């Protein structure tokens, strides 16, 4: 069967980007949106078809899902084993991503036609969305580490462009720069990791890198050690730094809250559903290596970074008032969950539950988090504010948004039968089996998630009615239809037998819900919801009193534990002022000084001796004659 057509999946959005970009001036408002959406629809249908065919037609051979190179071409050839390719890899991971990315992207496209109405740069927005979709699809379909790195940077660029979409706003520019610099800083680790891989493993190819026998030979090679660990493990840790930067893991998370400066559909697409899970995707891609090298040392790091981030972000999310920021921290928390799940996963069969759960959660999270963001966008569209203080009682004005938002909130809180329940339950089960402290953290966060989500929900849709200047109204059809579609996905996605599709060793296994654990997690969710109900159902000063009671702790959490300030301190005070300052001093005084000194002394000497060039022929004649005599004397002395 010929799978070359899969190349079109990323190329159609690229073409759309070029088309919209070059016709930026010519295309008027709705047309460019329709064109972009139509292009994406084709991509989405192709992707769904490919994904379906892969899972149910040719993907499985002898009960094992194969890694298939649908298309592969050598781009730069170094050695027999080491070459940079460009291609399309089909395996369960990319097949799942082929559903997630085009689906969310399509929803966001449709939604944006309504949301970006009458925005300047409408066409530009759609061009950038297409660019992002192209990059993201290229990323998930990468056949090798280097290709993934290229697209990794490209999603960074499109993210930068879209965060800075309102480029006349200084805060947006700052946020875009921050996102770019922080992720770029992390990508440096990724690049070094890739180079280590290429040098010691001598291949970029995922098929080889995830081959268990190949990994065993790497482990057997005891010479490749550095500070007690295999160099490959160091490479994996560095690659994880790249993934942590993109996935906003602590301590590289500082860009994500600020990235909310971008238009809300962008936040839904890039900073909730697709790009930020690239780090999870990357670790999952190289999962066998993470698992086997040095008995999963790097994986342990992944687990703990994920666990810390998930609770850290959840605490901050409780204290925020900007609804997009609440969702941003919620995203961080959920991605931490996925990382945590990967970290506690085993490899074979049911042991690989964490891996499956992580990807399952990625899938469901994409659905309901996109839904939440789009709902938030619809709310912001209606009340023209990001802050919950300006909201309340919106359920009367915006019924569709209300219902869909509620469904999504229930899903993220882990209430059955919504999607989040299934994936979250699998994660907790995996953690329970492998790592008890991580499980405890995950369990607490499950409760906190329910609390902050319903704090958000009640505060927006119930509470009391503030004085609206003009009555909020339900969003236009372009915006509500994606909400409804995503809500359906949110309800239904949990019933997909995910363990039959995705597993660590690509062998389907059967997972079942452990109702004891599930009951506990439901209980945590329900307690969280009830608490939020008490605090925020009706207007009261309970939350105010708690804020005062917690005083300093609340202030710390509200200020995101001053991580930004620490960064500023490190960069501005320590690096810029002291380290760079001393370099600047050295440069200014020693390097420039010596150069200027040479110049100045030349000038000084010249001014002193320029009198010799008096313009009088007689003086020249005198110099000439004395020179001749000197030469004569020298020759004479040499001859005698």
């Amino acid at each position, binding site marked *: 069967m010929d799978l070359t057509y899969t190349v079109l999946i990323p190329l159609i959005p690229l073409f759309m980007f070029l088309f919209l970009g070059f016709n930026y001036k010519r295309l008027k408002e709705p047309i460019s949106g329709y064109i972009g959406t139509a292009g994406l629809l084709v991509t989405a249908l192709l992707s769904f078809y490919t994904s379906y065919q892969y899972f149910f037609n040719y993907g499985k051979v002898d009960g094992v899902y194969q890694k298939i190179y649908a298309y592969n071409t050598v781009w730069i050839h170094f050695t027999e084993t080491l070459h940079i390719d460009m291609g399309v890899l089909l395996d369960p991971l990319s097949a799942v991503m082929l559903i997630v990315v085009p689906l969310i992207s399509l929803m966001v496209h449709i939604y944006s036609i309504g949301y970006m109405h009458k925005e300047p740069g409408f066409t530009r927005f759609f061009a950038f969305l297409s660019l992002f979709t192209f990059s993201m699809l290229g990323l998930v379909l990468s056949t090798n580490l280097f290709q993934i790195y290229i697209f990794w940077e490209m999603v960074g660029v499109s993210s930068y462009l879209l965060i800075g979409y309102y480029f006349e706003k200084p805060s947006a520019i700052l946020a875009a720069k921050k996102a770019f610099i922080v992720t770029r800083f992390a990508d440096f680790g990724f690049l070094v990791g890739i180079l280590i891989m290429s040098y010691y493993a001598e291949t970029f190819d995922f098929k080889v890198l995830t081959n268990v026998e190949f990994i065993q030979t790497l482990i057997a090679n005891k010479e490749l050690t550095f500070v007690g660990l295999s160099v490959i493990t160091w490479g994996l840790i560095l690659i994880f730094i790249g993934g942590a930067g993109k996935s906003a893991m602590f301590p590289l998370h500082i860009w994500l809250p600020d990235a909310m400066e971008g238009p809300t559909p962008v936040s839904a697409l890039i900073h909730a559903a697709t790009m930020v899970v690239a780090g999870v995707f990357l670790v999952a891609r190289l999962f066998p290596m993470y698992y086997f090298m040095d008995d999963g040392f790097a994986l342990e790091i992944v687990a703990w970074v994920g666990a810390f981030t998930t609770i850290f972000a959840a605490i901050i999310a409780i204290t925020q008032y900007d609804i997009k920021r609440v969702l941003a921290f919620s995203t961080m928390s959920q991605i931490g969950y996925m990382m945590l799940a990967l970290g506690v996963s085993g490899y074979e069969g049911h042991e690989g539950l964490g891996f499956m759960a992580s990807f399952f959660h990625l899938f469901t999270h994409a659905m309901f988090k996109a839904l939440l963001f789009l709902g938030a966008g619809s709310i912001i569209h209606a009340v023209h504010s990001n802050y919950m203080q300006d909201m309340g009682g919106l359920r009367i004005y915006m019924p569709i948004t209300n219902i869909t938002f509620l469904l999504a909130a229930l899903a993220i809180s882990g209430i059955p039968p919504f999607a989040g329940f299934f994936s979250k339950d699998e994660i907790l089960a995996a953690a329970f089996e492998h790592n008890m402290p991580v499980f405890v953290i995950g369990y607490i966060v499950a409760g906190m998630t329910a609390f902050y989500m319903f704090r958000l929900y009640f505060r927006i849709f119930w509470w009391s009615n503030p004085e609206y200047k003009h009555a909020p109204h339900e969003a236009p059809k372009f915006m509500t239809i994606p909400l409804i579609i995503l809500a359906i996905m949110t309800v239904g996605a949990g019933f997909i037998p995910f363990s039959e599709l995705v597993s660590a060793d690509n062998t389907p296994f059967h997972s079942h819900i452990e109702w004891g654990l599930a009951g506990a997690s439901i209980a945590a969710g329900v307690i969280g919801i009830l608490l939020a109900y008490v605090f925020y159902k009706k207007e009261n000063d309970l939350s105010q009193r708690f804020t005062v009671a917690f005083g300093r702790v609340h202030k710390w959490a509200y200020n995101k534990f001053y991580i930004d300030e620490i960064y500023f301190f490190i960069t501005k005070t320590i690096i810029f002022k002291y380290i760079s300052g001393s370099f600047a001093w050295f440069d200014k005084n020693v390097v420039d000084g010596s150069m200027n000194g040479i110049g100045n002394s030349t000038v000084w000497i010249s001014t002193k001796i320029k009198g010799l060039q008096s313009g009088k022929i007689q003086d020249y004649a*005198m110099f000439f*004659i*004395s020179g001749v*005599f000197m030469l*004569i*004397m020298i020759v004479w002395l040499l001859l005698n």
Partner: protein
Amino acid sequence: MERIIFYIISILMIVFAVMSVSNRNIMRSIIYLLFVLIGIAGLYFMVQFYFLGAVQLTVYAGGIIVLYVNSIMLVEKINNPLDVTKFWKRLLAGAIATTGAGLTLVAIWSHNFKEATVSKEIGINEIGKAFLSYGDKGYILPFEVISILLLAAMVGAIVIAKTNKVKESN
């Protein structure tokens, strides 16, 4: 006898040369120069180069000196004393000249010249034949070149010294 005359001429020449380069009156300077030139002509006569001595007298003493006198009269007031160079500079120039003279004299006196024993007078007809022959030891080409040079110099001198009419009318 000839030796005494030679010494007298030599000493006079050196003295007049020194006075010629150091006198502050330019007219006197020129007259001293004239004496030096005449002295050199005298030396030519003493070595039996009569034609050359005559040329020296006519061209230099008769022609060039007169040219000098005329141009000085054209441009400067005769009585204006010439400026004197700074003392240290004169000292330096004197030191250089002395060093150079010393070096050259040491070179001359340490060299063993093989003086010819025979003496032969070179007549004017010999010089004339040398100028006008073109074979070996013939100098017709340099002779013609010098003629053209003299012509060019004459034309050039006229052109250079000619007053610019346009400029004057302005």
